[in-house]
Structures are given as C-alpha cells and as structure tokens.
C-alpha cells in the first residue's frame, strides 16, 4: 500500500518522524557549530532550542491540518488498529525519555552546567519522539500482531 493511500494517522506519523529529525538535526548542527572551541557554559543554546521547539510545533500543527484536509473523510478517524499502533510506538519510544531524565538527574547531582543538562533532556526527547514515530511507521508498513 502506497503512503499516499495511507490513513490520516499514518500520514501524520510520517510527518512527526520527518519533523522530529529535521528539528533535532537542525538544532544540534547550530549548537554544535557554536560550541566548537567554546566552554560549554558560554554556548548560546537557549534561543536555538526555543525556536526549534516552536518550529517543530508549528510544522506539526500546520502539517497535520493540511493532511487532514487532504485526506478522504473515511480515513480521518483513528480506529482500533491506529490506537494500538500509537500505543506501541509510544511504549517503544518512552524508554529513551526516561534514560534522558535519569542522565539529566545525574548531571545535576554532579554539578554539570545547564548546557549539558538541557541538551541531554532535549536529545532524549528527540530520540524518544523519533524512535516512537519510526516504530509506528515500521508497524504500519509491515504489520502488527498482538
């Protein structure tokens, strides 16, 4: 089945996967370039992170709306299969979010700078979101058995 023939839920999963990769890669490319040869505490990371988060959110909302309007009415509503796949994707991705929180906690305990703590959390959220989308896409494409 071609992606163009997919349900609204599957198309938005593709959208979220692509947007999360673009957001994560863009942010780490910007901050990585700024961090070259500069102490971590002096790297300007707050506004790139804020703008990337806003951009990600706007892209997801606008993209979802566009997909919704372009989708046939019958394929817009999530059914049992969509809900199960979404749950499975969330379950698969959430482990990285937990690891990131744990790592951030350890960094805080050891007195690391805000730069490392914030970026660890951001990286965890980015991997968690991307992995969750990836798992959902794979399951949509090759099948889902309970």
């Amino acid at each position, binding site marked *: 089945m071609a992606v163009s023939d997919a349900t609204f839920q599957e198309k938005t999963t593709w959208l979220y996967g692509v947007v999360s990769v673009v957001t994560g890669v863009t942010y780490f490319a910007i901050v990585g370039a700024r961090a070259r040869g500069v102490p971590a505490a002096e790297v300007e990371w707050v506004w790139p992170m804020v703008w990337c988060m806003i951009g990600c959110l706007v892209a997801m909302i606008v993209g979802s709306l566009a997909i919704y309007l372009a989708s046939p009415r019958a394929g817009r509503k999530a059914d*049992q299969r969509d809900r199960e796949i979404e749950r499975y994707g969330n379950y698969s991705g959430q482990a990285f979010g937990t690891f990131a929180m744990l790592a951030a906690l350890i960094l805080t305990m050891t007195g690391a700078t805000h730069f490392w703590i914030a970026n660890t959390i951001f990286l965890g959220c980015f991997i968690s979101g991307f992995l969750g989308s990836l798992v959902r896409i794979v399951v949509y494409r090759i*099948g889902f058995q309970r």
Partner: protein
Amino acid sequence: MTRPTRVTNSIRALRFAHGEMTQAELADRVGVTRQTIIAIEQGKYSPTLEMAFQIARVFGVPLDEVFQYPGGADQQGGKRW
C-alpha cells in the same frame, strides 16, 4: 510485533460472495478504516475479538467461517512449551 500470525481469514472470498462488497463498504459497516480491512485480509493485523465478531456479523456467518486457525489436534488449545 511482526511475528506472522497463523490465523488465516476468508474475508476476501466472503466479500466477493456477498455481491462483490468492496473493502471500503466492509470497513464502513465495521466502523474501521479501509486500510485496516486491507491489513486484516493480508494477515498483517490480527483484529480484536470484538472486531472479528463484527466482521462475521456483516457477512452473517459464524466466526470460524471468517477466521481459521490451522493446526493438528495436538496444537489446539494454545502454545506448546
């Protein structure tokens, strides 16, 4: 996740036997998307028991005329450990 199911189904044959019912019509009557019916027909998704009964009800046949679980008598009743 992607372990192939041993459950087979006769949905495609039943659709054709019922006035060449389309996947979209069946999906509409069961209350799912057409893509879910496609996934079930292709064995890529095992429906819930409730959805399986709903599909059987649309065709007016018992559940085991829609879904089959092949295997010998020694394999009946669940996994062998």
